[in-house]
């Protein structure tokens, strides 16, 4: 179907302008307010450059809006870009792995949204973004996406209007999240930033000294102030957490998983179930104490950065059994086994037997440069041993059916679950020393961005062989 070339909504200009203002306000304040009375050459030049850059940016935003457009032709999306150099990109609809839409405050004013389609490839052409479109337009694009999928996969089974909601964050969840994320500690850097900024303007040091004297005499006021500060910080932490994790909804239908979240800045993410490459359960020490877990869905889409990882994670502060239950319903093939096998104790000895390069380096370096600090090498040695013991203690492995599950990590504990079909390649390695101990190293990679490589040191010979043949039979 051809529905003609479309331009983005005119509010594109407003959205871009706001984001431009946001990024340039610092420069503006600095050049025109803080250094307002300055006549230094570089400040004056800076102002000119700033003005020219602003005018150019505004001009180019308008041009961009005028020239950028997109269309849906048959089974692919074509995007036209570029003001001077024209660029035309197209992608087949069935190559799209996930989709994200993000509605910021500005979007909301105009009743609009944005949409990003992510393909499985890497590079600068991996994502297709529609920065400002109407809700109906988004639906239309998504609909044609589904049509594309349906025609190619020929899955005619009952189309997906029946989504089930599995999780909706409550106030209780938010309180838990704001404490677990330690966001209430954010008050301290904030306070110190305010303090140092004010200190430049007023002679705060002197007044503060007087105030401190006063407070020390009236110690009860100190306590009141402290409680007050704590209350404010908890409040701020709660608001921040609510903005980010409020309205968290996890739902799915027969084909896709949907994750929606946010107050004010609203994000929705969806991924096709069969594009999930692996599932990762992450637990920090604090989360382990509180029985919480965060579950991430690994996909080949364009999630290079931290933010992307966050997008594809189920609610990061969910009670563990609850998270497992939801996962079990949505992705029945990713069964997480709680009971896992640790390696035999000889693996620990093997780990401890390996050369201590870092310690040796430290000794050599200190011998040459700072002989009296040689004791530092002992600390390095101790830490290395501790980390090796922890590493042994937390590494475990289990394989059942088509599933492989490994667990690693001391302070942050990570459980990784994937399927045979999802593994890109495997390597079995064994060094001379490992052979003496009858163990091997197992490495396998999963498609993700960046590539996810799992290495397991110390698997028994028997299991290494079985694993290899298990993968070979396919």
């Amino acid at each position, binding site marked *: 179907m051809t529905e003609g070339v479309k331009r983005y909504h005119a509010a594109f200009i407003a959205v871009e302008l706001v984001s431009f203002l946001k990024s340039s306000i610092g420069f503006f304040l600095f050049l025109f307010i803080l250094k307002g009375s300055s006549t230094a050459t570089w400040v004056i030049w800076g102002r000119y450059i700033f003005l020219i850059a602003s005018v150019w940016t505004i001009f180019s935003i308008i041009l961009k809006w005028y020239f950028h457009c997109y269309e849906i032709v048959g089974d692919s999306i074509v995007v036209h870009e570029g003001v001077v150099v024209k660029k035309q990109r197209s992608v087949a609809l069935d190559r799209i792995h996930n989709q994200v839409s993000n509605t910021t405050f500005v979007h909301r004013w105009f009743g609009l949204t944005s949409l990003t389609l992510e393909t499985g490839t890497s590079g600068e052409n991996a994502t297709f973004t529609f920065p400002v479109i109407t809700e109906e337009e988004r639906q239309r694009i998504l609909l044609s996406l589904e049509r594309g999928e349906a025609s190619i996969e020929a899955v005619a089974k009952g189309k997906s209007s029946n989504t089930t909601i599995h999780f909706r964050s409550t106030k209780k969840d938010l309180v838990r999240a704001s404490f677990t994320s330690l966001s209430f500690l954010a008050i301290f850097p904030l306070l110190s930033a305010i303090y140092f900024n004010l200190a430049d303007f007023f002679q705060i040091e002197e007044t503060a000294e007087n105030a401190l004297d006063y407070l020390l005499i009236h110690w009860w006021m100190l306590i009141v102030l402290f409680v007050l500060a704590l209350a404010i910080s908890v409040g701020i932490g709660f608001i921040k957490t609510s903005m980010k994790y409020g309205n968290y909804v996890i739902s799915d239908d027969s084909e896709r998983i949907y994750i929606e979240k946010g107050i004010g800045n609203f994000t929705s993410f969806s991924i096709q179930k069969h594009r999930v490459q692996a599932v990762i359960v992450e637990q920090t020490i604090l989360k382990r104490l509180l029985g919480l877990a965060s579950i991430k869905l690994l996909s080949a889409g364009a999630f290079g950065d931290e933010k992307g990882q966050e997008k594809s994670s189920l609610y990061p502060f969910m009670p563990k059994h609850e998270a497992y239950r939801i996962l079990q319903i949505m992705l029945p093939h990713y069964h997480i086994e709680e009971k896992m096998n640790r390696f035999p104790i000889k693996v620990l000895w093997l780990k401890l037997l390996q050369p201590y390069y870092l310690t040796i380096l430290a000794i050599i370096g200190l011998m040459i440069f700072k002989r009296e600090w040689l004791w530092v090498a002992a600390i390095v040695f101790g830490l290395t041993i501790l980390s090796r013991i922890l590493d042994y203690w937390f590494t475990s492995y289990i394989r059942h059916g088509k599933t492989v599950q490994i667990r690693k990590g001391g302070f942050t504990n990570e459980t990784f679950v994937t399927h045979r079909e999802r593994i890109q*390649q495997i390597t079995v390695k064994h060094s001379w020393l490992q*052979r003496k101990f009858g163990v091997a190293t197992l490495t396998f990679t999963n498609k993700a961005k960046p590539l996810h490589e799992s290495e397991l040191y110390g698997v028994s010979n028997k299991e290494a062989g079985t694993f290899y043949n298990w993968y070979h039979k396919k």
Partner: protein
Amino acid sequence: MYIHIEEPTETISKDAVKVWRISNTIGHLAAILIIAVLVVCTEMFGWYGWIGIVLYILGGIFVLSSIFSILIEPTYLQNTWRYRIDQQFVQMKHGKWQVQHTLIPMEKVEYVRTEQGPIMRRYGLYNLEIGTTASNHIIPAIPAEEAKQLKGQIAVYAKIQDEDAVEGASDA
């Protein structure tokens, strides 16, 4: 104690040893030459004393490593390299002290190509490079005819198995 893995059977060319010996000799000679020049420079221009010490250590390491990688390593590599290519998998194995088995399903193979340097041309050998989304692997020193044939074969097998569009539909 050995791992129960069915070993791939194909071997690489015997000439690989010569190729590696020649190229490693050139590489190490160049490196040692550079270090020698730098040592002379230290003497002539009176650079800091520790630079000389570092250079001597480096030179020593290079001499040792050249003995290993010119005299010993090539024979072992040639002896232990095994590969096998069938309709479903590329299987590779190499190493003696550190034995490494790699297994790649055909459907994950993205491209295959052959390459040849000047020394290899003298012996009529090719490296076969197999690229996947994850990484790339080189099966070294395969006789020209065989390399060409393998390249074609892998291309065909990989093409047949290309089911990316319905990737994993079986377990979804």
